[in-house]
């Protein structure tokens, strides 16, 4: 269970998050949608303190509760060790091979033996279908392959929740499918996920909880049926309409 309450964040004078409350149950697949600049990504980054919220509390499980006003280093570290993140630009460790990328968190953070870490990594490589790339460096992989490794790196840690920050936004249209497919697969395995995305179809199909954000607020939330198919608020309808609009002209 993850519970966030009263999250506020300001960049200089610009208020990005104006009090966000959210609860995610174990096994939930939560998607956050909304226009650019609505604070989706900032909110996601607040969950693992890549961005320090100005106010609010973050609870993960029943044991860890972090107050954003004066968090201890230990709390922040604990928060990060219970979560994992998949980045828009993959952010794989450039100086490490695919296999080492997946093993890194297991050996360095979780202090598992090399042997054990390697077994986990090999199993995940099989799952993402990149066994033949195990000793390749990230720079020699395609975007889609890198992102799959990014997902494997997050999965390896067996975190309470995986945070996805627009995981397909930097990909060629051709590669979006393979990444979404993998995400769908792990969602089906009951892994808790929070996904910031522009892929409305993915949100509709895979998630069981959708949040629509605009201007630093949660405008609407509920099941995909409620938010995406039958949105109640005007702002949501407007956003979805523009997204779904048929092309005005066809070349």
């Amino acid at each position, binding site marked *: 269970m993850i519970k966030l309450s009263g999250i506020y964040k300001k960049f200089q004078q610009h208020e990005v998050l104006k009090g966000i409350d959210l609860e995610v149950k174990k096994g939930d697949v939560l998607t956050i949608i909304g226009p650019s600049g609505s604070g989706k990504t900032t909110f996601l980054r607040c969950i*693992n*303190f*890549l961005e320090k919220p100005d106010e609010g509390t973050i609870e993960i499980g029943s044991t860890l509760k972090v107050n954003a006003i004066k968090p201890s280093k230990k709390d922040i*570290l604990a928060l*990060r*060790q219970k*979560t*994992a*993140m998949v*980045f828009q*630009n993959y*952010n*794989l*460790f*450039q*100086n*490490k*091979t695919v296999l080492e990328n997946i093993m*890194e*968190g297991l050996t*360095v*953070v979780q202090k598992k033996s090399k042997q054990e870490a390697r077994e986990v990594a090999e199993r995940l490589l099989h799952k993402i279908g990149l066994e033949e790339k195990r000793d390749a*460096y*990230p*720079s*020699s992989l395609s975007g889609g392959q890198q992102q799959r490794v990014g997902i494997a*790196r*997050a999965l390896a*840690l067996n975190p309470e929740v995986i*945070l996805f920050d627009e995981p397909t936004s930097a990909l060629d249209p051709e590669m979006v499918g393979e990444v979404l497919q993998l995400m769908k697969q792990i969602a089906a395995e009951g892994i808790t996920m929070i996904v910031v995305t522009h892929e409305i179809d993915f949100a509709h199909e895979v998630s069981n909880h959708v949040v629509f954000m605009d201007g630093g607020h949660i405008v609407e939330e509920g099941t995909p049926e409620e938010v995406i198919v039958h949105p109640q608020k005007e702002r949501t309808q407007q956003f979805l309409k523009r997204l779904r609009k048929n092309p005005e002209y066809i070349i």
Partner: protein
Amino acid sequence: MGSQQWGILFAQIMERLPITIAMLIAALILGLILGTIIAIIQIKRIPFLHQCMTLFISFSRCTPLLVQLFLVYFGVPQLLSAFGIYINDLTPFIFAVVTFALHISAYLAEVIRSAYLAVGEAQLEACYSIGMTYTQALRRVILPQAFVLALPNLGNTIIDLFKDTSLAFTIGVVDIMGQARLIIGNNYGLGMFKVYIIISLIYWGVCIIIEIIIHQIEQRFKKGRVNVAKT
């Protein structure tokens, strides 16, 4: 007279090459450690220390090395003796190493800082996201990458330092330059030309070897980094 004498002079000067190399390596290791610490202070903008280091870098880069050498060799013992510490019996070699280390640490700090920044925030965030501490991130991901990026500049600094060791003779270190000066002095200034030809060839030769070593290291550590400029 003739070729035989060239050989003798060459051998006499080469005898002292280990001293020059020892100075280079000792100063380099010390300088790298210091430079890394200074770079981290500068990157993290640690209050007070940050200002001190900015001042130190400025002083180090904007005063002649020869002046710094004299300051350390003549100034520091005097300064310390005021506190009841006497270091007059240390060898000039140690003073030279300390001066060179301080001097290049200022340059290396800038080299390391720019390489660190070139690795980018994204790699650090990736480390944080899997629960690493800053120290772990530095050791496992950031510094190994920064090291590769820093190599070309590091090579330049090492070569500069190697040539700068020739100043150590001024405080009495008998390195290859010191030896050359002694030979010339013993001959009342005769054969100066030969000695300087020989010593310049020695400096040149060693520099080429350093260049080759750096190049080899660069090839070895390049690993995942793709050279974008090379097509």
